[in-house]
Every structure is written in C-alpha cells, then in structure tokens.
C-alpha cells in the first residue's frame, strides 16, 4: 500500500500491509508508574517511523480505557495512562495484541508541503559558517538543502516543530557550541542529519540557514499543527521580493 501522494517517493506503510511482514518485537521501557515508551526499532528509519505512526493510529482507534496521551517519537511511542484505571501489564498485553494485527487499510495518505525559504544573510545567519565548515559554497548548501524531499519524523520541542530527515550526509554539521537564547519564529535550521523549522521564537542550538514566513502552528485551527508525522516537506529557495 502506497501512502504517499506525490507519486515520486518510495512506497510507505508497508509494515501496515496485509502481507503481515515480520518485524522486531515491541520493547517496553517504563517511564515512571504512569507511562512507558514502546520502542519499535533502534535507529532512525522511515520504516520504523511508519510503524510508530501505525501503532499510534491503532491505539487512537482502540480508545483503551485509562490511556491519557500518545506521544510519538522517531522510533518510539510514549503511552501515558492512569495506573489506577488500568494495570501497566494489562495495557502492555493489549498493545502487543493490537500491534500483531496491523490496520488493513494502512495509513491515510501523507501530504507534501513546499516551504519557501529565504536563505542566508539576516535570514540565515549561520549559512556562511556552515558552508565554510563543510568546504562548499553557500549556493551548494542551498542546492543540497532544497534537493531532498524530507519526511516529518515527529513534531516536538515546541508546538508544531517538525523534525525533518534525512538531511544529505554532506550537510551534516553539529549543533552550535553555544545555543542561542532566542531563535526567531520561522527560522530554518540544520543539525546532524536533521532539519527543522522554528514555529515560535524559542531558544535553539541548530545552525540557522534561512527563514520562512509559513505559519506552522495556530492553536485556533481545528488541526493546530500544519504538519503531522509522516508528511513530506520540500524547501524552495525564494527571494523576499517574490512573496
């Protein structure tokens, strides 16, 4: 089952198909008496991330008694529950059962968003340093950053903040030695094999290479976050005059 809508990306959601491919058993890591992390793999990969997405959807649909929150990560799902309403061991059993019977219908199609970015200058104060550190031109950094369609692996850090991957290996740079105390809203950053967009002004340690006027989060919208886990993002270089 293809879950992508753009027709270019590789097929996703295979783990959820009715072919029932075998995968690693779930691993539960307790976080206190009221939550555990359900780990679905060891590394960052689209397949593992799809499984996280799939399990979250199934648990949402199952509406298990006592479950208060589901927080997906790259490779794990945090399940928060009321331990007086459901015993942790019972909940683990239920989740294991549910995971063994994947959704027949697969995941709903992901959407792809093109994000306009002003690169460099006052919009991307770290662009030149990043280029110098890698040993390529700033144009080449922009070409590489805009040349990939990224997967939204998770939303976190601040409301609406998309963790996008994977950044081309050539662009992998460490976080800034000293994080900034204020990164402007709309800043586009990179760190290691990830890229992301700051939805609100916040502290931040990623290298800022550009800025976008897109509104990523609005608490008044029915779906407050513009992007959801599993969506796709492509960056497009624009000049301020074009907007």
């Amino acid at each position, binding site marked *: 089952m293809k879950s992508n809508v753009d027709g270019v990306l590789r097929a996703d959601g295979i783990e959820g198909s009715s072919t029932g491919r075998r995968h690693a058993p779930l691993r539960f*890591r*307790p*976080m*206190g*008496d*009221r*939550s*555990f*992390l359900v780990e679905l793999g060891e*590394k*960052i990969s689209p397949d593992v991330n799809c499984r996280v997405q799939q399990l*979250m959807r199934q648990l949402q649909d199952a509406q298990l008694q006592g479950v*208060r*929150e*589901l*927080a*997906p*990560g*790259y*490779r*794990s*799902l*945090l399940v*928060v529950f009321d*331990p*007086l309403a459901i015993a*942790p061991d019972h909940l683990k059993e239920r989740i294991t059962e549910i995971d063994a019977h994947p959704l027949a219908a697969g995941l709903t199609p992901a959407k792809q968003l093109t994000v306009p970015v002003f690169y460099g200058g006052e919009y991307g104060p770290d662009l030149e340093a990043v280029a110098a550190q890698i040993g390529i031109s700033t144009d080449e950094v922009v070409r590489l950053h805009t040349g990939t369609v990224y997967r939204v692996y*998770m*939303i*976190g*850090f*601040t*409301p*609406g*903040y998309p*963790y996008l991957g994977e950044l081309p290996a050539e662009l992998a740079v460490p976080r800034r030695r000293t994080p900034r105390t204020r990164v402007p809203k709309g800043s586009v950053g990179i760190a290691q094999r990830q890229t992301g967009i700051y*939805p*609100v002004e*916040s502290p931040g340690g990623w290298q800022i290479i550009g800025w976008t006027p897109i509104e990523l*989060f609005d*608490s*008044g919208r029915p779906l*407050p*976050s513009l992007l*959801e*886990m599993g969506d796709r993002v492509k960056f497009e270089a624009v000049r301020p005059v074009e907007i």
Partner: protein
Amino acid sequence: MAGAKTFEVLSPGIMSTVQDLGRFGCARYGVAASGALDGFATRVGNLLVGNDENAAVVETTLMGLRMKALRDTVVAVTGGNLQPRSDRDLLPLWRSKLVREGEIIGFSGPASGFRAYLAVAGGFKVASVMGSRSTNLASGFGGFEGRALRKGDILAAGPTGDPVRFADRVFPPEAVPVYASPWRLRILWGPQDDHFSEEGRQTFVTAAFSVSPDSDRTGIRLNGPAVGRKPGLDESIISEGILSGAIQVPGDGQPIIILGETASGGYRKIATVVSADLHLLGQITPGDEIRFEAVAMETAVQALRELQNKIDKFKRSLK
C-alpha cells in the same frame, strides 16, 4: 456562558498564570501538558469552592500577587504557604472563604513551599484551547491570553448561583501535604537507567542535590556530583516523548527534573518521579536539597492510591 468580572490584578507578582490540570491528547503536535505544577493543591482548592477538580485556578510563584475582588465570591488558597493576606480578614490556607467586593488579597512570600493556588467558585473563566484552560507559555496560547498575568488584567469566574454555601469548608489538616527541604522524592528507575554506570546510579540515589536558581516551569535543575553514563555513549539519544517527573541527565551529569512544559527530548532519563510525589515538584524551591529514593512499581501505585483516597474521602465529606 460568559463569566462575571471577579478579580482585578493589582500586581502579578513574580509569575502568576491560569492553569487547570493540564492539556492531554495533543503531544503529537508537540504540545506539552502544561497545567498546575501542584495538581493536588489544585484539586483540593477546586473542591473547597464547589468546583470540578479540573476547573481553572491561578497559580502564583513565590510572592507579590495582589488582586482586588470585583464582587462577592468564595475563594480557597491551597499549596505552598506564601502567606496569603486579605486587607480585611485572615485568609487561612486549605479552607474556603467568602471575600467581599473591594477586598484585596495578596501573597507576601513563602513560609513553606514555592507556589500557591487560588481557586474561585465557578472557576476562572478563560477559553478552553485544545481541551484545556492551562497556559502554554512557550507558544502563547491557553490560560489568560496565552501569557502570565499582568497588572490591570480582569479575571472572570463562571456562574455559581449562591457561592456562599461553599464558604468555610476545611480540608482536614492531617491530610495537608508537608512541603519541606530536604525533599525525599520517590523514583522508579528508567526509561534509560541501563545507559548509566553502576557508579552513576549509586550516585543518583545516595547524593544530596541542591536546586539551582535556573529552575522554572520547564524543569528543576539540580547541582551535585555528576551522574555518570556508561562509557562510549553519546551525550544525546534519538528524540522521544517525555512527561513531567522524568529526570534527564545531560552531558554534564547534572540531573534535570522535567516539569509540564516539554513534550519531547533527546537526553537520557535515568529515573522518573512516582505519580504520588509529582505534586511536590511544584513546591520545590531554589536552594532546597533533594534526595532520591528508588521504590518498586507496586509501592508507587499504592502511594498514588492513598493520595487518591485522601481526595475521595474529602469529596465524600462534602456531600
């Protein structure tokens, strides 16, 4: 239904926000729970004034909040003893009290604890955003206009009929929590205790940690001997969901107890505070001392049951 104007903020103090018991179900959008850091005090305060436990209250930190009543109403102050005063009368903690139009209440500073909660009959009336009235300070939504209170803000409360019938209720003194340093916080190991060295784990449960002045609503930062991880492990892990009470240990080995403003993180968590002790986190003050005690899951759940029993018993007494 719009509420009636009930309080005017004369001074917001160090920091005062509108909170309920938290925002759940939106972590997948990166939205943390927020909410009152002392949930027990919030629940009791609301019950004292005849509200649902989850009604919105004002959480105030340390000192300085002053508010003028704009109509007769019933309030209860719970949580840390920030020495609440009224310009007309005594304002004892953990009991409901009728305040008169024009009466001024204020908080002069801590005798014990760090945060006090002001509940009002009918609950503070602010819009519910994503299912909660709590303030999300990072993104500026929820609570009162998405921000901490300021001088001149007018707070409304919901309709109550005749609030006087809720006046002079008392929460049993023997059930009131003790807020005092040195704190003994019960923890359960994990989720990543196996990433720490045996020595690091020993340090964690034997050392006394002091609370850093950098602590805020995002986390309680601790200073003490470094809690070491196993050799060969990176400083950070792949980002994952997180919740209040989780104790992360960054590269410098100084633990941070996560509070309600964070939905995900990329540091290792050595342990997590048990649910029954979470309410105490709201009362821990910079300069205090903390020791951690590892307990078994059954002990943690039993402690939570006992805490819940206190609430249930009190609820029954109100009927």
